């Protein structure tokens, strides 16, 4: 099992959700996050006062998939979010030791 963490642009969420459901992935955790990488915050000036935005608003997706579905899922996320520009985001893949469905107690791949 692998956990995919993807940081994407907020307005791409619907596209990703749709693309993932097309390959049969329906479950995910979505969080509104702030951060910066190469795309930094910026400042705006209004009436002489500076308004600094330190962080760029992003969406974090978390999806746990079985190993055999990993590549397909990552590629789907990537192609749905890729515009060739800075700020498109990043995808991280982490190993998952165990998954347990709370209701039934099922473990491993069955719990995903």
């Amino acid at each position, binding site marked *: 099992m692998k956990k995919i963490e993807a940081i994407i*642009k*907020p*307005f791409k969420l*619907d596209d990703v959700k749709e693309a993932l459901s097309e390959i049969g992935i329906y479950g995910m955790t979505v969080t*509104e*996050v*702030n951060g910066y990488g*190469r*795309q*930094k915050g*910026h*400042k*705006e*000036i*209004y*009436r002489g*006062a500076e*308004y*600094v*935005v330190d*962080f760029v*608003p992003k969406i974090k997706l978390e999806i746990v998939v079985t190993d055999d579905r990993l590549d397909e899922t990552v590629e789907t996320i990537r192609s749905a979010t890729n*515009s*060739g*520009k*800075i*700020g498109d985001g990043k995808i991280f893949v982490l190993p998952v030791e165990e998954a347990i469905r709370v209701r039934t107690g099922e473990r491993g791949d069955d719990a995903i």
Partner: protein
Amino acid sequence: MDSPEAKILIEQKQELIDQYLQGQEFNFLEKMTTRLDEYFYRVFEKSIAARKMVISGNPFAIIALGGYGRKEQCIHSDIDLLILFDKAIPPDVEAFVQELLYPLWDARFEVGYAVRSINECIKMSFERFDVLTTVLDARFICGASLIYSEFMEKFRQQLSAKHLKPTLNYLYENGEKRLADFGDSTYLVSPDVKSGFGGLRDYHTLLWYAKIKSNIKTRRDLEYYGFLSHFEYENLEDALNYIWDVRNRLHYISQRKNDTLHFEHQAEVAGLMDYADTSGAPQVEVFLGELHEKMEFLKQIYQITFEDIVSTCRIKKETVASRPTKTDGLFVKKRRLYFANTVTIIQHPDLLLRIFLESGQTRIPLSIEARRVASEFRHLVDDEVRTDPACVKIFKRILGMSMWKFNVLNVMLSTGILAQFIPEFSSLVHKIQYNQYHLFPVDKHSIRCVQILNGFKYPDDTMMGSLYHSVFKEIRNKNVLLVAGLLHDIGKADPAKEHSRRGARIAGPVVDRLGFSPVEKEDILFLIENHLFLAKTATRRDIYDEETAVYTAHKIGKIRLLRMLFLITVADSKATGPKAWNDWTENLIKDLFFKTMSIIKTGELASKKTQRLIEKKKKDVLDLLRESWREEEVNRQLSAMSRRYLLYVSPQNIVEHINLFRNLGDREYIWQITKDNESDMRTVSICGKDKPGFYSKLAGVFFQNNIDIVGSQAYFLGDSYFLDIFNVRPPQDRLFEKEKWEKAGQDLSMALEDDHYLDNVLDKIPTEVTISSGSRPEDSQVRIDNETSSFFTIIEVLTYDFPGLLFAITNTLYRAGINVNVAMVATKVDQVIDVFYVRDIEGDQKIESEEKLNQIKNAIINRLPQMQSKEVMNEKN
């Protein structure tokens, strides 16, 4: 430990709960209290340890504190106990506590206890507010009653002698702190029925205040001592019984002391409270509506109490006698507003509005009687009142007085006067949207929205607060903003329909009655119809794309509308609840606001004139391509192009580009050279995949091949393509022109391959240029404008033309890590103004660092040759 007494108590409690849940026991709180009292009697009677202490001259009293003291024991409420000694505390007390409390702990009762002497306890009471309030509720259970009475006497004496003011101050500050900690619980998705505002704590505060001030003994005394009127008292009883019922069921379901009515518990509690439709499904909306109404009442009572505490603490004592107000037909008594008599209301129905104005201005609340009277006579607010200019004016002033701490508009709503004055509003009253997102019924939400808008009146220390404040200050007609805020959800009565447009339609007649001018009306209806537009755009489109801001600017059009829409968006989201509003959303919306503002201010891309020009151009392009292209295909191409491009590029060139783009395929770029018959110039149209430095390399290749650039424009197409136009003079040698262009093409391919292919060309850029125009040349200038656009740093270069100029500038930019996104290069005789819209390659955003901007400026200046005039040359010669 097996205790027969505890066993009896547990059995009794279970029996009581069963009866209560079956609806056979209406006095649970007091009965539960009595059962506990009985337990303590029994253990005390039988205790050897207790007897020992009494015999050895250490009598003591067992005293109930807090909620137990008030006889308000819910299923899993804490039991607060005080074991009070006259002076010394004997060691035997430990054995007694074991006998008394261990069985209760074993049975999972939440028992807290303290063992103190009288003096110790009094000292602590005035040191710690939480101790003081529990002592205020102290009630004797058993033991030596003299100790209890001596303690209470001493406590009262000290309280009135030296602690009255600080205690009231405590009460006041505690209220402020509670607001900060818990917020307003009325209408929360998960209301805290105890500690939140509108929770039981509001009633406790009133009770404590009355106990401190007048030493009242029970809740009933609140009316007898004049803290509440008869109506207020009856309403309070009603609200308390309801909330206790909810709390008991909540305790029962969660099997512990839990006072937060979580979302997932609501349906179950509603079911237990017998809220069910004909099919038996719980009617959660109805239940929540009623709960919120009761909590709202507690909050109102609290706010009146709060006013009283403030006036006792800070203002001179109010006389008991009534006094008239500025408004005829009203009077004030004990800091409450009353109608003088009902006959005057019939003669002057505008009093039904004026009382709210008076209340808002003086911050004196309406008495509960006045609320009842207003409600009963509300039918007098008829069409005549609704359209009377004086009344309309009063209403607008009331709107501006809707504030958090004293929201007169809420009272106007609860009396029904608001819905009577604006009948369209009545469809929203108590309209609950049961989901995790909307916390408030639509009527309350609308008023909160007005209240939040009014809050922007005051400066705020936070960055965002000061932004809202400064935007608010710039809005000239606040009434337009407030009325739009009040009516923005007026279309929500029908949940199935799209409410924004519907709302604008319903609001039309309201706005007419309120006497707004046609322009103001248009503004209000626009704001209502588009109140979701900014929030939607900010979250569903790429706000870092200039086109998004241009689209937004085009839709909104006017700066005053943008300002108002921004504040309404913020107020609407904040009034919806924490899920609709957080830093994250705030950042997105703020950014879109700034970016749109600069687009509207500049006027270049979103004005009506621009729109007309672009529409005309699109039509021309369609006409030109009609033969070879399908119309929808052309439209698709056109909609992908930036407005700046459509604005500045001629229809003929657009057609060239569309054709080029179609033929581009997988190639890096494709160009087309056309001959201009009239001026013997060549136009080179180039389309390709965007790559930093491309524009600079083009300029370099032209320079290398002695092709003289007269003008040039560069644009981007969508995310990853560019479209450039170069106006150039033909090569000197016309015979081999075709070959010359081929050579230039080869050089360009080499330059794209090898980043340093053009390095040797750099050396050919002249270091001195002689100006032919005669007059003394001005120094070259580089101006950097970082304010006009939110998306680009704009660099303007003013200088004289010379071969290689464009390459000199753009190569410098490229080497400094800057990408040219848009360029407009024009030569007039020999003077040149080149404008570049650039972004940092690394971060793909405008350049923020002052240091970097200066470096770029200097680098360009240093790259440009020395300018000399002919005269100077002549003098030298």
